[in-house]
């Protein structure tokens, strides 16, 4: 309800409406971008400019729909544009040795529960594993697990077929699930 009131105020030219939205979504926006770009300053820049775009594009927003997915589409797309321009897609070779070993293990197509039992990885490894994904897959993880979007919604936001999203998620999930499982031991 708060979002709707804020949006109506922005549409009427009252910028205080935007302040409400900034308060509400700024941290998630910065975190989401950080998970894609791994650069705090850039994450804040992208999130900031996304809020400016909200004002510029508010007349394109359909108030019948929730604000968050529409807003995070702008955020994620802008992050991906920067990722593409930076070409910061890390390969396995770029990772340090323990992480590379971990990543190598993660690429194993099968599940090895008995090995999972023996794994003791730190939370930092989780971020490293996400970091080892290409930016688009990182964005998929962020949208699905951090922003809690549905696969269908992500497909629309990413302008990719649902099957591609499912495919990326399949790969990324495998790595992450394995990590989470070893984490819990």
């Amino acid at each position, binding site marked *: 309800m708060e979002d709707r009131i804020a949006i109506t105020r922005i549409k009427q030219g009252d*910028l205080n409406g*935007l*302040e409400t939205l*900034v*308060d509400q979504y*700024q*941290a998630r926006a*910065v*975190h989401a971008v*950080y*998970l894609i770009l791994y650069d*705090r300053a850039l*994450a*804040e820049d992208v*999130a*900031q400019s996304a*809020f*400016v775009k909200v*004002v510029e594009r508010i007349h394109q927003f359909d108030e019948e729909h929730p604000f968050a997915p529409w807003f995070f589409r702008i955020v994620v797309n802008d992050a991906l544009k920067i990722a593409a321009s930076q070409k910061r897609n890390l390969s396995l070779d770029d990772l340090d040795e323990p992480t590379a070993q971990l990543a190598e293990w*993660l*690429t*194993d*197509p*099968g*599940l090895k*529960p*008995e090995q*999972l*039992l023996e794994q003791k990885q730190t*939370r930092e490894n*989780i*971020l490293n594993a996400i970091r080892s994904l*290409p930016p688009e897959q990182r964005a998929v993880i962020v949208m*699905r*697990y*951090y922003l*809690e979007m549905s696969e*269908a919604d992500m*497909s*629309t936001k990413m*302008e*990719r*077929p*649902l*099957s591609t999203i*499912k*495919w990326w*998620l*399949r*790969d990324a*999930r*495998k*790595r*992450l*699930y394995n990590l*989470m*499982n070893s*984490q*819990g*031991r």
Partner: protein
Amino acid sequence: MNKKNIQSILKDEMEKEIPSSQVRLWPAVKASLVAGKKKSNKQEEKKNTTKLRRILRAAFAILITIVLLTLAFVTPQGRAWAQEVVRFFMRINSTTIQLSDEQLKWMNAIDEKIDLPLVPVFIPTVSPEMAAISGCETPQKSQAYRCQVALAESKLGFDLKELPEKPNDWEFKSLYVNTDLKIAVMSYDLDFKDIGFNSYSSLRFTQGVGDFSNTSWNENNPWGAVPADKVESVFVGAYKGEYVKGRFGLRPGNNVLTWSEEFKDQRLVWSEGMRWYLIEFSPNLNITGTMGKDQLIHLVESLVSSPIEKNEPLNPDRMLSISEAEKISGLDLKAPTLLPMDMDFSYARYFPDEQQVRLIYGSNEDLIIREWKGDPINFKKPLGAYEFTCETVNTSGDDAYYCSRETATPSSFLWWHKDGLNYQMYYDQLLGWQIDKEKMISIAESMQDMDDFRKKSERDYEQIVLYEQALEIDAKKFLEVPTGWIFTNFWGDIYAQCIDLIYSSTVEQGTLSINQCKTDKRSDTSVFPFGSIQRVKVENTKGYYIVGDFITTEDGKQVWDPTAPRKQLYWQEDGLWMHLSLSGDKALVSSKDELVLYAEILK
């Protein structure tokens, strides 16, 4: 670990990395907005200048075009060039295509959950024509590239262009021949990269006879259309052709195809006399440095009629039959004789350190079976922490361990030990295709000494009965195939529970497909314009006869064309929803009575 756990870990990590209390964007956002308002007046001035520049540029472009066209039609060379303008791709003046309701109804099934039926593995028979080719006498040998090409050439009556030598990291995937359309389609996978599963580029090389722009593939296929300004003229050697990067794609929830270059798909088409050639290349997006326009042109310029044959060493990462895997591993492998529908043997991989073979099934690597020598697996280790629900089950009288989990990506596995070999079968449920415990056990119990292999051509008519049993459909067939038609392929549709039989005309160009479904999902005639539907009787049953098809207009619309070469018949019989579709030139010369007759002689 479920979505909530991942989410909370990510949230905790982010909170540690960038505490929410430290994120204060409002002052900067406000400053940007205030600055933006001041800037807008300056931008208006700049916009006007830019607009003037654009008008001048357009005027200059028009002037240049007039000069070039004048030169083209005045000089002898120019006149010759103008007469030889070749157009291949179907051009439209739009970057979007509105799909018809009929086309859209096919797009919406992907998310449905389906219990995959099990189907006995079918080892194709060798046709007499194939058996007559030296070295192609057995089912497995007949899958070899050399055998497939030799048979295709004898069916088509002309030599196919081929790669001079197959690059080492390319895999020949399949060869499809349509004698009626006079086309051959060779498919390859290349640029393999293991990213937890195999990702690769796909290359499809189609060659045919006649005018490419009039082929039914190109003529009425909205996915084949290209915005006019995206077509590049190229030369392949001395021959003219066209190149395009990008393709039309459907965004979920939309009914409009939109042009996109994101996928980096490329197409190159050219003709040499009466023959045309088309390369379609979908690059592996997980790698950089794969082929672009120049490399594709270079590749096709190297094509030959008589390639060099070479014996390739076995590749332990990609063995295309169980016997190859046994040869490399030294293991006496067992393979399932019962598999989920359409989840055929794909390849096998050998891991020397673990002396383990993995048999991989399904085009998405959905089902994996590991086999290795060793002591029986210890089932007693606790597995609850992985969110798997586990139980001891019985496979052929022996204990086995079955675990499954219902998370965002449900998966299950079955472990067992038999005759000194450990077996682990894993299934990842992708796209909603489900296999339950009983089916996993049935697959395990069906494992035998069997040399399964990757199949590279159409399915045999004899295989239909296996699909009928799996889908519990008593499909109708021609007791005697009508004169002028030949059976070419069939497939099972798990979503609508159908069996589709495909026949090709041996006289005019034409395809006859007979679809028989247990559901009405594919029998919605309301997608056709009201005036195009006629009522008919098929024996004593009410049926609908439809003439015409949707065609793509230059402005990207799908409009109904009553003269388009397609005739269809819908009716119900013995609890099945029946659909007969006739397309191509044959449709133009066939009457309503002929279609009804085909329907009535199906038994």
